[in-house]
């Protein structure tokens, strides 16, 4: 479903993605971890072309993402993206946030879009917040709205860029619960996170990155309990003892 072929990216001289080869089949839940600056966020941001790549190819559902002739709007419509800082639209209510793309990208009738939006809000447990503004919500609630906003486009893939890193500890659980629910529905997911509990519970595969390369991949149990490389071992001990 998602394929990276010899992907390279530089930020000026910094080689942020160094020859990445990766296949993510439909239905897989991939957790990406690694120290900050290792290129993990950049990796998933390339999947919907929030970042450009300089060499190589990324193919999503047979569409070459970085080919100029590809229909970017259509591609992005099938990929949901959840940001660390939520990025809800502050001038719109929760319901309007969730409806915006279905109405304007998919050109759905407003009533149909509203029905879908309310379904997705119910899924993330925020039905009663439909007419609230983002500023009136807690961080955890905002992130759940952001997930609902992504789901409203009925995407085939959901990308999460450190979805719980900006949250107070007591709110992390409610967001992870929603994500676990998505896993159980068979959503294809790439999640940049350091939440080991989440990774162990639901990830099919863990990918460890450092300095722009994929250092190690494995099942969550193998990776966290028996890392193959010293770098991964060091990283795991750091997130365990922080």
């Amino acid at each position, binding site marked *: 479903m998602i394929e990276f072929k010899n992907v390279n990216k530089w930020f000026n001289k910094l080689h942020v993605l160094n020859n990445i080869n990766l296949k993510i089949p439909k239905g897989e839940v991939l957790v990406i971890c690694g120290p900050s600056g290792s290129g993990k966020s950049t990796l998933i941001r390339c999947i919907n072309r929030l970042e450009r790549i300089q060499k190589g190819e990324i193919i999503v559902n047979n569409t070459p993402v970085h080919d100029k002739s590809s229909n970017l709007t259509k591609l992005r419509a099938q*990929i949901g993206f959840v940001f660390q800082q939520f990025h809800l639209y502050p001038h719109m209510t929760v319901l309007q946030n969730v409806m915006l793309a279905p109405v*304007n990208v998919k050109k759905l009738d407003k009533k149909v879009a509203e029905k879908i939006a309310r379904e997705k809000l119910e899924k993330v447990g925020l039905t009663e917040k439909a007419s609230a503004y983002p500023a009136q919500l807690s961080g955890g609630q905002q992130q759940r709205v952001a997930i609902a906003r992504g789901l409203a486009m009925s995407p085939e893939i959901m990308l999460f860029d450190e979805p719980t890193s900006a949250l107070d500890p007591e709110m992390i659980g409610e967001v992870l619960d929603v994500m676990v629910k998505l896993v159980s529905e068979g959503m294809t997911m790439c999640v940049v996170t350091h939440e080991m509990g989440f990774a162990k519970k639901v990830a099919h595969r863990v990918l460890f990155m450092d300095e722009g390369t994929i250092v190690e991949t494995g099942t969550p149990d193998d990776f966290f309990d028996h890392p193959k490389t010293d770098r991964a071992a060091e990283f795991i001990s750091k997130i365990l003892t922080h």
Partner: protein
Amino acid sequence: MMGFYFSRLVEIYPFFLKGLWMTSKIAFISLVTCTLIGFILGIFRSGKNIILKRIVGVYVAFVRGTPFVVQIFIVFFILPEWGLQLDAFPAALLAMAIMGSAFICEIVAGGIDSISKGQWEAAASSGLTLAQQLRLVIVPQAMRVILPPLVGQYVLLIKDTSVVSVIGVMELTRVGWVTVVRIPEGLMVFSLVGVLYFSISYPLILLSNYLERKMALE
């Protein structure tokens, strides 16, 4: 004495009303065109297209760095040498459009630049086109930053219409000039001119203050 002033006033007021009407006409048309052009330029100025951004940057720098009177002279006296001959009224409108749009461009670009990159990315990643990102997500938020200085700029533009008197447009200031050479009550004439300008710009000053307080509160 007062009776004498009053009879003078009665004598000259139709002339001043005409001037006020002309000033209002120039101001209104200019505000509309400056706003339209200013928003388009402002969007280019804050955009990713480096070439457009630079071109607009040069335009803005030139307009902001030269006196408005000189710009009017260029439009009215120099453009005809290049084949564009305009009457005083359209020349005044063109000069106002050039000057006002440059200032509004900077206000709009500043407002758009104040919106975080994350808002663009959230909108883009959901599949909205660039135009939709601007129209639905970015500009509505930027308006909170743009609106107070924009209305303030409108006040300045209204006052700047007085400068077009130099090419003979019979607006309020020009009417003042012409009147004052015919009658001796210069103080009264220009007081009247001032009061009439004030009557148009003061409501906008109040609006600008109100918007500034309202936006600061939210």
